[in-house]
């Protein structure tokens, strides 16, 4: 292989290539920060539902609930109890039971379907059905990130 001649043209080419590489890495880093911030925001945003709000939610309305999974069966149904938000990372158990249905359209954030197992803590965004169950649109796996009082 021949050495690259150290001409003005090759220096310009080199400068352009390095600028493009640095710009690409900067954009990539920016995207990573934005993606992390967006996911973190979705995690705290979904904690808005109160126990009373969930109890009064009408069929067809959208709810966002935090729950501790008691059982996640193979029938695509997750059962557990509603968690009440105390602080950003602390939650308390309530007496309200929650049943959520997982479908093909359910999106999983920060985890996979298998992570919604017994004792897992999850946020569910979904639509209340006539039988008071929730048709899950999005499930955020929060095990390890939130703590019970």
């Amino acid at each position, binding site marked *: *292989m021949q*050495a*690259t001649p*150290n001409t003005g043209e*090759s220096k310009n*080419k*080199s400068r*352009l*290539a*390095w600028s493009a*590489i640095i710009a690409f*890495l900067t954009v*990539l*880093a920016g995207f*990573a*920060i934005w*993606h*992390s*911030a967006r*996911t*973190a*925001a979705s*995690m*705290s945003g979904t904690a808005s539902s109160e126990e009373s709000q969930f109890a009064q939610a009408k069929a067809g309305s959208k709810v966002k609930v935090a729950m501790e999974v008691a059982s996640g069966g193979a029938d695509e149904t997750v059962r557990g109890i509603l968690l009440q938000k105390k602080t*950003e*990372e602390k939650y308390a158990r309530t007496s309200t039971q929650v049943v959520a249905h997982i479908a093909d359209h359910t999106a999983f954030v*920060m985890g996979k379907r298998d992570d919604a197992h017994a*004792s*897992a*803590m999850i946020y569910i965004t979904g639509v209340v059905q006539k039988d008071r169950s929730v048709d899950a649109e999005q499930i955020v796996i929060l*095990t*390890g*990130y939130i*703590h019970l009082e």
Partner: protein
Amino acid sequence: MNTFFYTSTLGWLASILLGAGILLPYLLRRTALSQRLGTEQSEKPYLRRMWAHYCIGYLVAPLALLHAWIPMQAGGAHGANMAGLWIATASLVLLFLQIVLGLGLKAATSLDRQRDRRIHYWVMLGIVATAAAHVWLNG
């Protein structure tokens, strides 16, 4: 959810820097890629051209350590995939080993430089494989 934000951001930044650090020797040495892009700076000695590779190497390890430290301090490791965390620990150990190997190569004092470069290369592959497995299992 600051814990998640800092953990996630540091992890992705470490991954991006790791990729950049791996790419740099191929861009600074005379390779088909560097000649095509014109990134080879042949007027300076090779080891001096590699300063950015060294800086990135020193930066990735503490970033990865912080990425592990923040959730552990917050108790966030509970409930996470344990296999993924053990693989991440192995990745961290390999990162520090890579720094030691890199320091030897940088000092150019090695008796068998070819062998050390080969080990440096294989450790790099080990870091990439373990980091990818960690992202897959815990990401």
